[in-house]
């Protein structure tokens, strides 16, 4: 830091460190999936298929969310199942 920076004061926290961290996370994920085929659509289809063997599944009621992290990513697949009331109505 030059003496000029000292006088100006560091009013804004340096943002370049945030840029590096974000890039490292997103690129580490992208490099893994670069050559491989995009597996999420197939994973979702297979999961819904398995669940549908046991209960009725509405394709509109399937939600997938992903949060990528440095050490850990969370993939959540939420399948809303019809309750007993809805089933009774259907029959």
């Amino acid at each position, binding site marked *: 830091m030059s003496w*000029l920076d000292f*006088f*100006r*004061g560091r*009013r*804004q926290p340096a*943002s*370049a460190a*945030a*840029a590096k961290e*974000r890039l490292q*996370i*997103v690129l580490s994920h*992208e490099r893994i*999936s*670069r050559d491989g085929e*995009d597996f*999420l*659509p197939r994973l*979702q*289809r297979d999961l819904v298929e398995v669940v549908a063997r046991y209960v009725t599944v509405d*394709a*509109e009621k*399937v*939600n*997938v*969310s*992903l*949060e*990528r*992290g440095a050490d850990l990513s969370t993939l959540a697949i939420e399948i809303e199942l019809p309750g007993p009331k809805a089933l009774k109505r259907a029959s």
Partner: protein
Amino acid sequence: MAEIIVVTSGKGGVGKTTTSAAFATGLAQTGKRTVVIDFDVGLRNLDLIMGVERRVVFDIINVIQGEARLNQALIRDKRVDTLAILPASQTRDKDALTKEGVERILDELSKEFDYILCDSPAGIEKGALLAMYFADQALIVTNPEVSSVRDSDRILGVIQSRSKRAEEKRPPVKEHLLVTRYDPARVEKGEMLKLDDIREILAIPLLGVIPESESVLRASNTGTPVILEPNSVAAEAYKDAVARFLGETRPMRFLEPERRGLFARLFGGRAA
């Protein structure tokens, strides 16, 4: 019915993605339900600029190919609840982007949103043509520099002849000029094209002038649309442009170089 707005330029790197993120966020902040779509298949960047890169699950190509529903691919913004982002694919081939597919997505989005912004890739190839094809309005992002002005003129010609509105002989796409990375100090020294020169040459209505500003880099580092940055002249200029787009009259600002004394230069840093 939603209003479809393309953000385009012909030339690369002039500020389309920065503008798409800022403008979409600004519109959404006024309560308008807004979605911003990345059309840059293979080189997606809007997710990074919007700071949602860790939450991308599906993308526009997955939706077009029927592998995911639109609602699964839309990322809802955590800062502004009327804002959503539809990312481009990073891995798929550009040819997967089809006119029919894009039309289906726009039709479905039209039911839920007031504004649909399309962040165009550079050039006048397929991605750029599809981004502008269904547009009702166009933001022409132009830098005060010869090749950018020429490319803007070229893309205006493309919009006027090859958009859906032109093909169907409906009222033309409404064009807006947005001059970005404007550096008044260099304009004053005669090193950069003046605003009036650009207006005279392109001859379309001026929506705003966004000054060259350090805060744009800071915003992209942290994944914040620049319009949300505090103490930023670029943010102020984008807010003005959004207000004008919605019908307000606001004077143009930041067209003159800052005149500052030694004290301000020592303590104030450069244009924020």
